[in-house]
């Protein structure tokens, strides 16, 4: 049962970081392929091959660079770099808060990329992306706070080795995290700033003016992000590594299921419901924990 631990522990910090940098996009792309296949089947379509996301990215990378201003690709590169950096920190077992702030920094660059092209569609996407960020950010921070309350540490390494199951202490926090995970995965009903489904929109929000290689980078960044977030789900069940992996995958499937069953919310509903759900599930959980201690 602990082979997974033994494997991870045998690696040094730089090796773990490197493993994340190489393996995360492969796993993320594969999950994305499964997502598309499964979604298609749920909708009664045949669906693309599982490896389709890789083919797409390969093709995008070979395309001509078409841009509207000279600097627009720079924020996207920074978005990718900082997402990778936060993910690498996380999987190296470093500080959870540092990871969260790094991820927020990466997200900010993405939004700035959307703003800097000054196109109406992209601008609207960027505004909505900020609203989404504001909607999920409190819950992400509270997750770290909750984990600290249980384990007494912000270090991912320590949290992952905690003997007791975190999920038993943090059911509310986990529920709140699941809720905002839908926003982070860009799934319906919260896919306001850009959607993953080609059939929903031709002009794709924040990425309207990004094409070819830049779009490929955005896609790859998303794979990294998905793996990082699933890593956070893993922490809730880390007392049993195999169970944790299964639960992380189950969470992903659950999000696909949610995606299939909901139409898009308005931003008002997205924002208010996310903050309220955070308050009801996350905050109450944290308060109970602090009273228990």
């Amino acid at each position, binding site marked *: 049962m602990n082979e997974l631990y033994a494997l991870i522990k045998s690696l040094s910090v730089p090796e773990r970081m490197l493993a994340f940098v190489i393996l995360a996009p492969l796993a993320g792309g594969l999950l994305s392929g499964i997502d598309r296949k499964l979604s298609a089947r749920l909708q009664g379509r045949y669906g693309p091959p599982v490896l389709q996301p890789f083919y797409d990215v390969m093709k995008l990378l070979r395309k001509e660079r078409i841009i*509207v201003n000279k600097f627009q690709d720079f924020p996207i590169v920074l978005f990718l770099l900082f997402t990778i950096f936060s993910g690498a920190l996380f999987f190296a077992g470093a500080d959870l808060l540092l990871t969260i702030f*790094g991820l927020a*920094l990466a997200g900010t660059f993405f939004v700035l990329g959307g703003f800097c092209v000054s196109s109406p569609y992209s601008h609207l996407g960027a*505004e909505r992306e900020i609203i989404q960020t504001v909607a999920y950010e*409190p819950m992400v*921070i*509270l997750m770290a706070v909750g984990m600290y309350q249980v384990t007494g540490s912000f270090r991912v390494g320590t949290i992952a080795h905690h003997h007791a199951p975190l999920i038993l202490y943090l059911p509310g926090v986990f529920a709140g995290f699941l809720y905002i995970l839908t926003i982070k995965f860009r799934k319906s009903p919260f896919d306001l700033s850009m959607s993953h489904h080609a059939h929903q929109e031709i002009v794709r929000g924040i990425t309207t003016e990004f094409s070819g290689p830049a779009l490929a980078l955005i896609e790859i960044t998303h794979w990294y992000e998905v793996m990082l977030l699933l890593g956070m789900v893993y922490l809730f069940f880390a007392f049993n590594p195999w169970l944790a992996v299964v639960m992380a995958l189950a969470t992903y499937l659950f999000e696909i299921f949610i995606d299939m069953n909901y139409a898009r919310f308005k931003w008002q509903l997205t924002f208010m419901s996310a903050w309220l759900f955070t308050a009801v599930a996350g905050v109450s959980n944290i308060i109970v*924990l602090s009273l228990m201690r």
Partner: protein
Amino acid sequence: MNALIFLIVFPLAVSFLALVPPLSLAVRKGVGVCVNIVLCAVPIYLLVANLDQGPAYFHLESTIIDIGMLIVELFIAGYLIYISFTSKRYLTALLVIVQSVIMVSFEFTSGHGMQIEHSLFVDKFSIIMALIVGIIGSAICLYAIGYLPEYHEHYREVKDRRRYFAFLMYLFLAAMFGIVFSNNLMWLYFFWEITTVCSFLLIGYRDDEPSRESAFRALNMNLVGGVVFAIGLVNLYSSSGIMELDKLLQTDKGMVLLPAVCLAFAGLVKSAQFPFSSWLTGAMVAPTPVSALLHSSTMVKAGVYLILRVAPVMENTAAAKMLTLIGGVSFLVTALIAISQSNAKKVLAYSTISNLGLIVACAGVNTAAAVWSAILLIIFHAVAKSLLFLCVGIVEYKLDSRDIEDMDYLIMRLPKLTAVMMTGMAGMFLAPFGMIISKFITLRAFVESNPAMAIILAYGSAATIFFWTKWMGKIMSIRHGVAEVVEHRVSRWEWITLGILAVATVVVCLAFPFFSFHVINPYLLEVFGKTPVVDAFNVMMVFIIMVGLLIILPLGLLFYAFVDKNYKRVGIYLGGGNIDNITFEGAMASTQPIALKNYYLEKYFGEERLFNVGVFVSLTLMIIMFGVAVI
């Protein structure tokens, strides 16, 4: 000791020199530069000289000084009463009279027997404050030299009183040095009142109805703080016979709780926490250097300075919990209100109150880690916020607007200024610069002691990201084509100041380990007997990100500007109806321009909706704070 007295007396002398009429502009500029250099150099000398030493206390034969201060106080009181009667503000007059009666009767009943052992003192925290006041404060005064001629060109109806303006600015600095070096609480009180009067006169500089209104509001609120300060001093002396800051901190805590709460109250007013926030948001009617001075290095920082000083007395009491919550409420509510504001100066004002709220909350928590991050917040906020105010001041004249919605394509119209402005913004909210490092530590400090504050911080940081990101996005949007560059009209004086502050913003970020280990930690060791444990790995990571960004950003921009040629440039997508880059073909073959506006979510975060909530909640907390202190 001489350096301390010099730092108080020198700006005072300069302020009177500024009143001398026949100096030409060139001479004034020359003097301004020299003063600036001296005011930067002396605090740095203090820092170097005291780097390995603990706090030092100085005795000063003070009978004459005390009498002199009393006379000045009475003179100011008389002046304020005169002004308030001529402008029919009787509440102000009443407050001044109450305050004067308290202080004069106190002076006559117990002034003679009062033994002051140490009048002045210096420790690491005072030095940090002196550095902020010296470097940033004097840089702002320098900026004012270039700014005021333009101001009067712009507002011809305002009476040109620039000598009087310079007098007040330097007087303000002198009073600030006085506050941070005074150990004698009577002196602290004296300098405290000087800053109140200076801010009143500076806010009312325009001398029209709105600015008079704001000035009197600021005066009234700060006078309330002053009255409570005076009551606190009287109570302190009558209950324990103490009139010195260091003795106050060493006394039995139960005995001096009420005076400490009174002093903290005065600090809350000065740092514009709820329910006293409206004076700071009203203060933006003043010329920009005044706002920059009030927000960064003086006034509000005096407030949090005093709160941090007296916080150890309140440790582990219900009063401290209330203080924490007042700070928390101010932090959260003003961050939310800032989302709904499109007036650039107002966004900055609310962001100031918000950050100060965090500092006050840290003071209330009062653990080594919390105070550590409070001091870092003071430093980072001072540099970044002064920089932003000065930038907005310039933008206001170049665009004839201080509305964020008018700052489209600012990076094309004022490229260098926008770069400076973005440095300031990055310092305010972008990880890993400045504020974020402190928030990181603050969150840790809160989680240990007060989970409710961690929750407030989680929501508040999200709001902070919102209003900064959309503003930053606005000014960095680029359109294809040309925009009129208006930057050449920015004066050299303004550039010099901006340069100093922009460099300072980057330097304090890079030098924060130095400040932490050599300046803040020794201070914490004196007060708490321990220092917060900071994970070395985290510090290293933060450093890598910071240095990485500082290298990547300029290199990347250069690459995309000059090296990268491999692309095809097209117009933006306008639903296929493009006419050119900013217009498209609408219905009936009409030509429609595009306009990009930000979200302000007025319905959720409107000022009138949230402001009163903040006032009432914090008023309740404040009453509880006094209640538990009296019992």
